């Protein structure tokens, strides 16, 4: 009796734990939505103005969009430990998928509408936002596998370089895309503009929400829900996949590839899946960006800097930790879009300086320094994952360590050698003897037996 009761409470506890984060997440998103939808407009200006200045709706939408990308890169870098410096490729392809499937035509004649909220009379291909999200995700997953396949046998640093190369090639492809063997594939440098906004379906028909989520004040508020839903899906998938067989295989590969393969983890398939899943998220992020944030795609937006920005979000937040990554994405995209400027405004008002315009121009330097400082002083990120902490804190195995000595001991030793003086030398000799002593039985025992 007692046992069943105990298990009953623990299982209800488990159910509660399972629903804890989705409920919390929904509450946060709904709070943000109602904050901008009804609370702020009804407050007095002196209260609402600072909130709107520090955190405009457009910035929240951008933050959510970047969170999708950061979660995607987290699968590749954080879970599977494959350093990807060309993540912008998926973002670009996702954006261009939106450009191809939900925009005015730039080179073709046909009109095609599929559950699209825009007027039926509009020329060009117009497909529903959610369908395009799926299409872009699938397309990007394929690209991810194509990019991943030749890089599978490479070690960390080479891998980073090749992915970086692919990122540049994809951007160059889109830059030259007005003339690919004579065909205009994606309109080259000007890109594709005026991409359809997402529709609101029944909510729009009922008159609660605007029919189209354009870049208007009302539209931006409702976009919080759409983007929040996308981010929620990404978080859910990230968390669930990590618990499963695939996620644990990724972690195993990240921590020790050789050991993982010896334990029966299929390296090729697992790594390719990491690329595919990460790219899927990237594609969704691309569509969200093209349709909801910029309403246009052009190659100039997809530079190497963006790849590093996403990587920085992952590193800053804490590689492998979904919540850390989300926080990192929010923090950095806020700094990048509005935060630096607002900090400048604030400092200006305190000290009478003129930083408002200049501070945002230093964003690259600030972000780069942030990355360096993070690596030097807090490698595991703001909200570290327990496993990553262990991984990034332990120094690599030295030879002394493999002989049985503690690595710290070995390090102290080498330091002592560098500032050598006779007394220290004697100590080192003693410790070396101790080391040899500890290593000796294992190594020498068989030899003695032979004699």
């Amino acid at each position, binding site marked *: 009796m007692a046992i069943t009761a105990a298990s009953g409470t623990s299982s209800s506890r488990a159910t509660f734990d399972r629903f804890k984060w989705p409920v919390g997440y929904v509450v946060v998103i709904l709070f943000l939505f109602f904050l901008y939808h009804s609370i702020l407009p009804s407050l007095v200006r002196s209260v609402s103005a600072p909130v709107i200045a520090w955190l405009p709706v457009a910035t929240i939408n951008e933050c959510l969009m970047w969170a999708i990308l950061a979660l995607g890169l987290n699968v590749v870098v954080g879970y599977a430990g494959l350093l990807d410096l060309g993540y912008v490729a998926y973002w670009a392809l996702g954006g261009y998928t939106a450009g191809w499937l939900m925009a005015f035509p730039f080179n073709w004649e046909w009109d095609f509408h599929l559950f699209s909220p825009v007027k039926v009379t509009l020329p060009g291909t117009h497909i529903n936002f959610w369908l395009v999200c799926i299409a872009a995700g699938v397309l990007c997953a394929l690209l991810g596998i194509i990019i991943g396949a030749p890089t599978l046998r490479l070690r960390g640093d080479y891998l980073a370089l090749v992915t970086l190369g692919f990122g540049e*090639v994809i951007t160059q492809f889109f830059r030259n895309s007005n003339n690919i063997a004579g065909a205009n594939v994606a309109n080259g440098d000007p890109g594709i503009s005026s991409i359809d906004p997402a529709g609101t379906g029944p909510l729009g028909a009922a008159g609660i929400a605007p029919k189209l989520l354009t870049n208007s004040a009302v539209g931006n508020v409702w976009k919080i829900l759409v983007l929040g839903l996308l981010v929620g899906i990404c978080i859910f998938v990230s968390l669930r996949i990590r618990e499963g067989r695939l996620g644990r295989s990724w972690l195993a590969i990240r921590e020790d590839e050789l050991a993982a393969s010896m334990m029966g983890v299929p390296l090729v398939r697992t790594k390719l899946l990491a690329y595919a899943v990460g790219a899927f998220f990237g594609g969704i992020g691309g569509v969200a960006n093209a349709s909801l944030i910029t309403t246009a795609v052009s190659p100039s937006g997809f530079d190497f800097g963006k790849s590093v920005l996403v990587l920085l979000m992952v590193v800053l937040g804490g590689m492998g930790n979904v919540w850390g990554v989300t926080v990192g994405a929010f923090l950095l995209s806020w700094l990048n879009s509005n935060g630096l400027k607002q900090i400048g405004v604030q400092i200006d008002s305190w000290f009478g300086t003129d930083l408002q315009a200049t501070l945002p121009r230093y964003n690259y*330097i600030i972000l780069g320094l942030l990355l360096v400082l993070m*690596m030097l002083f807090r490698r595991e990120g703001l909200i570290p994952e327990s496993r990553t902490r262990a991984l990034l804190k332990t120094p690599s195995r030295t030879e002394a360590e493999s002989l049985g000595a503690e690595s710290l001991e070995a390090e102290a030793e080498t330091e002592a050698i*560098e500032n050598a003086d006779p007394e220290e030398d004697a100590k080192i000799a003693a410790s070396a003897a101790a080391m040899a002593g500890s290593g000796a039985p294992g190594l020498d025992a068989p030899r003695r037996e032979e004699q």
Partner: protein
Amino acid sequence: MATAALVAGGTQRKAKVRLGPLVERILGYVVLALVVVWVVANVVADPDRFLGSALVGLQNGMLYALVALGYTMVYGIIELINFAHGDLFMLATIVAASLLVSVLGVGNLTATSILPLLLALVVCMAFGALVNMGSEFFAYRKLRSAPKLAPLMTAVGLSFVFRGIAQQDYINGSAQKNWPVVWGGPAIEGVFVYKLLMVLAVTLPLLIGMTYIVSRTKMGKAMRAVAQDQDGARLMGINVNGTISFTFGLGGALAGAAGVLYFLCQTQTYYDTGTQLGLIAFTAAVLGGIGNLTGAVVGGLAIGFIQALNEGGAYGLGSNWSQSVVFLILIVLMVFKPEGIFGRPTTEKV
């Protein structure tokens, strides 16, 4: 029992994988043959343009070799891909430009420009060496025992910082900046002879000096020892930190020299040059076999030649695709021959 099963499994696996390398080798030769056919077709179709491209290739290839040496030396000694190296080179082009044009007033290049050129070389080499040694001292040194991802990301961060510095309006701005430097004199197929001579006159002594330092001097010996085994070198009384710092300095100095030459060849500066050229140079280093000094030079020349032929040859994709072509080489290389032309068996690390 258990061991027997393990061994059986092992051999089975081996037999299964065997077919891969054969197919791979054949495919590799096919790719190589295609490249050769492409080069020959270019020669046959338009020998004059081929000559011009070859000269441009030589000129650029020497610059790539200088930058590639910086990558390959650092990789050889601490196995780090120094992503910031290309951006260091880019900063050097800006320093060279401001020094030569703004301070020394070089415009029309004549015989009297040799003195300012030498001065710029010295300044930029010192600049490159100092910046590289500084970043080693402040960042990479503390990460030497850390997992590999950490120094790599630090390098990416530094490259970001360098780009950000160059993007400031009072440094170079975010647009391409053209400088009023004019080349004259005889030209072969559009390639200024003096330009080519200048590049050769600077790079060849530098390369010979480099080889001398690494293979003949005590410091070079120390570098090779550290590359082979840091702990062992330390036990032999080698100052490991100093040696690594020296290697960074040497690489930075070469990047500085390459910066001066690149600026004089292109007469423009751009904050993104570093990423583009750095990647090309890295590809060159990988092509020759990373960690191998001769390989870096040969790789640089090969990449410069292929790129020039792609841009100027009869059958090329044009300069719009030049990055893509270089990366295609890199990717194909990674797939078929990751150890580069001068493969690992004969590689002398540093």
